[in-house]
């Protein structure tokens, strides 16, 4: 999975800036293509009923909600967790968590959603929790890596001058870890939006409905429109993440 590899070796300036150009261009081209397909292909009745604009709008909204909500849960859980286990005296817990969450990510998202379904039944909540677990690792791992790569001498100097442990965390470690943590969050958001296409499995809607109907009824146009909408959404959110990474990164590093 290229998305995961990206988090293990985060790159900033060069790749980040390239992202700021390539991603929007790609999203724009894909949008053009989708609009062209929409306008110039002849829809039969089935296609037309799959691709009803009101339906698509609802599904797009559902996809956004699932993607964002699961990502917010990930941030709310993984960042504090990462902070906690990088404090002194928790190395075993850290290894245990990273390994366990690695397992969670090794499971197909499909399987994870089904497992959650057996406990939580149908609905959006199931998908959101399943995806939150699925994409916890990139954020947790980047939080840990981000905090651990902070130059030990900078922390030593901070403590030596009289920063309390909390001040060291808030004023030195976290600001210096921000770019790497955001890179992890971007990865999680893209995973979550992409995987939100599976939400239809447990009746949580989303653009997966359109793709699924297209597949079942053999309507390639519908498949293409649904899939490209998911892709465009993921690209746009990734672009917003790249912007955040660029502007939230502290000056001087």
């Amino acid at each position, binding site marked *: 999975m290229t998305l995961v590899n990206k988090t293990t070796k985060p790159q900033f300036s060069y790749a980040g800036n390239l992202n700021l150009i390539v991603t929007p261009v790609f999203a724009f081209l894909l949008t053009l293509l989708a609009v062209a397909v929409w306008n110039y292909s002849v829809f039969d009745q089935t296609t037309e009923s799959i691709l009803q604009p009101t339906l698509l709008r609802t599904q797009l909204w559902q996809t956004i909600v699932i993607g964002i909500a699961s990502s917010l849960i990930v941030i709310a859980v993984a960042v504090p967790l990462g902070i906690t286990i990088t404090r002194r005296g928790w190395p075993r817990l850290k290894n245990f968590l990273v390994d366990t969450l690695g397992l969670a990510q090794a499971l197909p998202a499909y399987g994870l959603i089904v497992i959650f379904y057996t406990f939580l039944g149908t609905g959006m909540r199931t998908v959101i929790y399943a995806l939150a677990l699925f994409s916890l690792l990139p954020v947790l791992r980047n939080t840990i890596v981000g905090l651990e790569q902070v*130059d030990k*001498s*900078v922390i030593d100097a901070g403590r030596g001058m009289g920063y309390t442990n909390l001040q060291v965390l808030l004023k030195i470690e976290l600001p210096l870890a921000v770019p790497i943590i955001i890179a992890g969050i971007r990865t999680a958001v893209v995973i979550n939006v992409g995987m939100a296409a599976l939400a239809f499995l447990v009746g949580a809607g989303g653009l997966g409905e359109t793709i699924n109907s297209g597949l079942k009824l053999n309507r390639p146009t519908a498949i293409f429109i649904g899939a490209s909408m998911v892709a465009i959404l993921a690209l746009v959110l990734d672009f917003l993440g790249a912007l955040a990474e660029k502007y939230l990164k502290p000056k001087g590093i």
Partner: protein
Amino acid sequence: MSEVLIRLDNIWKTYTPGEPAAVRNLYLEVMRGEVLVLVGPSGCGKSTTLRLINRLIEPTNGKIFLDDEDVTSINASDLRRRIGYVIQQVGLFPHKTIAENIATVPKLLGWKKDEIEARVDEMLELVSMDPATFKHRFPKELSGGQAQRVGVARALAANPDVLLMDEPFGAIDPITRDKLQNEFLRLQQDLKKTIVFVTHDIDEAIKMGDRIAILRDGSEIAQIDTPENILTDPADEFVESFLGSGAILKGLTLKKVRDIELQMVTTLKAPVLRDQALKTISDNNDSFALLLDADDQPLRWLDERALNRTNQPIEKSGRPIAVQLQPEDTLQDALSSMLQSSVGMSVVVDRQGKYLGCCTIESLAKLLVHESPTK
């Protein structure tokens, strides 16, 4: 001057119970206004000792006194804000500007904004950096030497009495290091801070220290004394081997030319005639003389052979004087100038360049032998 400012009272530090202690029963006093250098081989615990003072390492046993106050169990962050801290890697905050870095402790202490700003400028000027140029830069834009200047400025910003320095010039190239050391010594003459300075470099210790504590394993003090006394009278074989074979040569940097008894040689005052010059030299039973100008400033070495051989004007015969010494120069300078000199001695002049006397190998040796206690 002899007032004790920092006292480590029988400190023990054990990391794992059962293991040998990293610091064993250390008693150390640091006087107000002195530079105490902790020096010793790697792993002897000198950094540990330093970090015990601001309690970055908490002692297992024993007490720490700062200005007669027991600080062993007060709030460690409050204690550290009263003590300047400089480390080898500098550790500037990369996401903060130079001004923000220097403002760190004043800000923690809640100084007013305009006070902090004025202080930042003052500190940058103190370490010879232009505030307007550097204030708004980030640490990554500085060279190693500049970064450590800022490191020192940051440590001094809240005007602490005590400064802890852990190999502050260790990661800097030799030329810049020498410059920073000299600047630092000059600063210290005005500031009169109480400084504990860690290094593994005995030459740096001799140069920087008012007193030196030589440590061996477990932070045990092998000897603590002035550099002069340690060099001339090492306590035991460990200290001797740590000083290395060049101990006497190292001692030369501590003594000044003015400590030497100067020798007077035959002098001639220009203008002088050749015959007159030769006569004076032979009258004095000498083989050479020093030619001075009308203002008593040394011109050349004249010797009989040179005077006999040439028909040149007397001001151009003989040999030029390679180096002139001043009373403030170290004996090391004196030795090296003697080795360069054609007559095996060097000329000492005062600030105005007037001849004071000559310095010879014999007088140098006499001083050193006289200083060394007989064993």
